């Protein structure tokens, strides 16, 4: 090994504690980066292998009975590579005494030859025999069932029937059952017959032959197929085109990975700042050595190379820690993300390119960070370097700022010393403050974003004045429903509504297929169940006929949705025309609109028919809600009204909160990591400060300071930096929280927050800053207090 390398290594070894601190900081940044990168690699591969391997349908056409002749005709189209009929019907399922759940039944013609939307058998029987049902693996928990159980099923108005659960399948294409709170079941045509349903398969799934990921192409192919089917006398009610090649929840995963990679990059920059700090300190303390090296013939580049190799060593050491840590981290990340998307990760093998990137970044970041301090430090001339008295002779007092600081009084001298000392190395201070403040800003943002989310949700939920929603399987005369709703204990108020689906016209330039779908609630004029939060315009008024209030989610979908405009969309087969009178603030999906009940009560529509009921209860605990549900079911059954499902507002809120918690936890974890990096930065800074002030510490000791006093002065200096970083973070917390909250929520939900600033966040962070900076300066302070006076005075 050459002498310069020896020097690089030994210099580090001499200051091993500080070297370890900086290596740890870089390692954290690198590990975060590597974790996100490998998660990205593993997840995209798993999606490709998992989701695309099921051969997902490019489009689904909903029609009447599909026969083999039709399939052959469709397959004759050269643009269609495959077509397969299926049937989906919605029913209810119950296991033993558990409550009814929504059940999506998928009827498969031939379990031995599924070519589209493939299922993966996981446990038990395959294929299911007649009278048997397979359940999606994630839905077992929703159904509260296990293999071997007998479940009760009810389709439409039919009577209750039982099926055996004989197996579990993995249906990658379905969103997580727990998240959707419904059960997916798979049966054969024979079982369908036993359930008393007609044997029609009414969904045609097709896969396009080319350009599988081109939505425009898929639309045009689907349009041709639709025409073909219609020409053969079939009716096509609806055409579904899911985003091609994209798992239903892939966007959510993308948002999370994007947020995490931004963050990983950020941490990496912060750890780079630490390298700048470390090398600036080292270059300053080695001025004389640099002078000597130049005096004995070293060129600037030769000198600089020694310090660059130190930066390289930092990177190599950090990589040794960061790579395994990052890979472990990616496993921890991928697990929950894959579960969220309901797919399996068969292999955590990280591709080579991830390693190459991590290594490249791990080596380049420290080198880049070192570039400026090293190049600048190595520029000093031999004469200047040898005349240097050492770093403790820097001239405090030459700037206005110093003199201003000197003007601060009214404190004991040790305290003054600590505070003024913290301002001596201002570049170092600024860099340290940046890293510490970043942690604070993220922490306060986490608190503020959470509070804002809660406030936004509170306001939204406050507009819903009911506690329980009941959706019927069909529309029923209102008097039947009213009778059923009567005399149920604990129901304070009830109303029944008509709910329909609106379909926007297709966007200009798109194919002739349908546009966006949204819910349309026909609201009674004197409703007590809904108090819309009107953002613009007005609410519906008694006497309104063609007035519509759209929610903000729907308003965002089309520039036409403005107060005063006339809009038209389809309800069922009819095109209807509406005057937008107001926009109601509903920050989260689904998109929807509110129209007067009078519209549905018109002769040619659904006069007196209702398909939804809203109930306000006097007590909303689970037990009383369940007892209301039971009573209501019994009454409705007596009236011949079929219930599709019921939903307590409290349960809805729990579900939404669980989604929000993810954002909150993410921000808190982020700030935690940043705080650790910031703390390592402060510890490095303090240890550099102590090193540079050894002689001063000796003087202080010589004039009577006890080791504990020296310790206290250094810790106070560290705490002063902590408090300063707190002040910076406090100033930035408001704007950053707002930006960050809006950005995250816009990415995830396409909406905006009601911003709320939490004062307690400031106080909590002040406490954290003080404690953390005291802890970070503990070791440097300890080593400072252990310096003997003789050593300190002899130090150069």
């Amino acid at each position: 090994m050459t002498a310069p390398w020896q020097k690089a290594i030994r210099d580090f070894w001499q200051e091993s504690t500080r070297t370890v601190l900086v290596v740890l900081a870089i390692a954290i940044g690198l590990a975060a980066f590597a974790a996100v990168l490998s998660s990205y690699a593993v997840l995209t591969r798993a999606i490709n292998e998992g989701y695309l391997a099921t051969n997902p349908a490019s489009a689904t056409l909903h029609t009447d009975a599909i026969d083999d002749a039709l399939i052959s005709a469709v397959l004759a189209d050269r643009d269609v590579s495959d077509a397969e009929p299926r049937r989906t019907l919605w029913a209810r399922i119950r296991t033993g005494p558990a409550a009814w759940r929504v059940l999506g039944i998928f009827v498969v013609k031939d379990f031995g030859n599924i070519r589209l939307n493939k299922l993966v058998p996981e446990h038990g029987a395959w294929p299911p025999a007649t009278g048997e049902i397979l359940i999606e693996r994630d839905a077992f928990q929703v159904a509260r069932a296990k293999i071997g159980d007998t479940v009760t099923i009810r389709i439409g108005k039919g009577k209750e029937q039982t099926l055996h659960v004989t197996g579990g399948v993995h249906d990658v294409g379905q969103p997580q059952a727990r998240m959707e709170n419904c059960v997916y079941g798979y049966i054969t045509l024979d079982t369908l017959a036993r359930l008393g349903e007609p044997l029609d398969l009414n969904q045609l799934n097709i896969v396009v032959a080319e350009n599988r990921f081109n939505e425009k192409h898929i639309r045009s192919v689907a349009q041709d197929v639709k025409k073909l089917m219609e020409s053969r006398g079939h009716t096509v009610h609806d055409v579904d085109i899911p985003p091609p090649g994209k798992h239903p929840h892939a966007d959510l995963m993308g948002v999370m990975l994007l947020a995490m990679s931004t963050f990983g990059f950020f941490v990496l920059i912060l750890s780079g700042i630490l390298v700048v700090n470390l090398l600036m300190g080292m270059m300053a303390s080695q001025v004389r050595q640099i002078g000597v090296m130049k005096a004995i013939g070293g060129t600037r580049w030769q000198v600089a190379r020694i310090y660059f190799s130190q930066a390289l060593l930092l990177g190599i050491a950090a990589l040794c820690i960061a790579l395994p840590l990052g890979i472990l981290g990616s496993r921890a990340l991928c697990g929950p993300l894959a579960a969220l998307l309901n797919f399996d990760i068969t292999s955590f093998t990280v591709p080579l390119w991830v390693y190459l990137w991590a290594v490249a970044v791990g080596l380049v970041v420290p080198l880049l960070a070192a570039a400026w301090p090293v190049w600048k430090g190595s520029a000093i001339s031999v004469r200047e370097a040898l005349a240097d008295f050492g770093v403790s002779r820097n001239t405090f007092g030459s700037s206005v700022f110093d003199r201003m600081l000197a003007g601060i009084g009214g404190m004991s001298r040790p305290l003054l010393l600590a505070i003024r000392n913290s301002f001596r190395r201002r570049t170092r201070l600024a860099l340290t403050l940046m890293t510490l403040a970043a942690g604070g800003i993220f922490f306060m943002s986490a608190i503020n974003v959470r509070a804002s989310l809660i406030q936004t949700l509170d306001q939204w939920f406050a507009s819903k004045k009911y506690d329980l929603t009941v959706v019927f399987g069909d529309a029923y005369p209102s008097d039947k429903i009213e009778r059923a709703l009567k005399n149920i204990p604990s129901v304070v108020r009830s109303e029944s509504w008509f709910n329909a689906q609106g379909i926007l016209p297709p966007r200009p330039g798109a194919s002739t297929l349908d546009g966006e779908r949204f819910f349309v609630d026909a609201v009674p004029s004197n409703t007590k169940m809904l108090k819309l939060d009107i953002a613009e315009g007005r609410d519906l008024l008694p006497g309104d006929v063609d007035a519509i209030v759209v929610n903000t989610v729907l308003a965002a979908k089309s520039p036409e949705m403005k107060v005063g405009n006339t809009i038209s969309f389809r309800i069922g087969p009819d095109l209807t025309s509406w005057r937008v009178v107001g926009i109601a603030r509903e920050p989260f999906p689904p998109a929807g609109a509110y129209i007067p009940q009078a519209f549905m009560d018109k002769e040619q529509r659904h006069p007196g028919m209702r398909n939804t009921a809203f109930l306000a209860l006097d007590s909303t605990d689970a037990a009383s809600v369940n007892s209301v549900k039971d009573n209501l079911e019994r009454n409705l059954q007596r009236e011949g009204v079929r219930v599709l499902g019921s939903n307590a507002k409290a349960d809805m809120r729990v579900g939404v909160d669980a989604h929000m918690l993810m954002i909150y936890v993410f921000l808190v974890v982020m700030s935690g990591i940043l705080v650790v990096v910031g703390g390592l930065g402060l510890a490095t800074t303090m240890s550099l400060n102590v090193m540079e002030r050894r002689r001063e510490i000796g003087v202080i000791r010589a004039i009577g300071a006890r080791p504990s006093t020296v310790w206290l002065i250094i810790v106070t200096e560290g705490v002063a930096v902590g408090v300063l970083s707190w002040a910076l973070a406090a100033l930035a917390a408001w704007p950053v929280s707002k930006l960050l909250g809006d950005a995250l929520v816009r990415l995830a939900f396409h909406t905006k927050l009601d911003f709320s600033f939490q004062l307690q966040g400031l106080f909590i962070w002040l406490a954290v800053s003080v404690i953390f900076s005291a802890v970070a300066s503990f070791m440097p302070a300890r080593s400072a207090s252990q310096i003997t006076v003789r050593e300190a005075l002899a130090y150069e």
Partner: protein
Amino acid sequence: MISLQRVTKTYQTPAGTFSALRGIDLEIKAGEFVAIVGKSGSGKSTLLNLLGGIDHPSSGSVTVAGAALQELTETQLAVWRGRKVGFVFQFFQLLPTLTSAENVMLPMDFCRTFPPRERRKRALDLLDRVGVAPQADKLPSALSGGEQQRVAIARALANDPPVVLADEPTGNLDSVTAGAVLDLLRTMASSGTTVVIATHERDITRLVDRKVEVADGGLVAATASTPAAVPEARR
């Protein structure tokens, strides 16, 4: 005031054991102004460090202002040093972030020797005594070398110590300023403070009561100044 008996000091160096001091016996009375002279590396700084409790003897005893220094812990030494000894260094060693007055008040803060309210007044008095009262609220970087050393002397006197130790106090000053600083030390000794300085100054004999020469870790000779010079200087 100061008593050294059979004091030795050895250092372990990679090149072997190095004896900095060998069998030193030395008595210094209260109010004496003593110069320790000798070549570079002769051991005079080591001797001064032992007197100030900055370094421990390898053997023998060092008694200064009533305390047997070899028996004290680091913390006890710190307290003792703060109250009993004032230090003056070659490079002044004022703390750059404190003003002159604050530098003088620092030892009082450390040792809690005077009531907090009186500390500033005392610091100003001391600065006045050494002739730099107008510089009280300036930072060290705004002072000349001579002024800085005067502030350092005021700081050494902060806790009214019976002993002041000065290591090459004039080594970094021009001859006129150096003379003024030595005069100041002479005045301190004349008013009862024991002053020991390590120095290269040739004509120090004129001012001090006694000159102690150190060579190769041992005392060469203890030379008393001319008795007449003492009362002369004391006036």
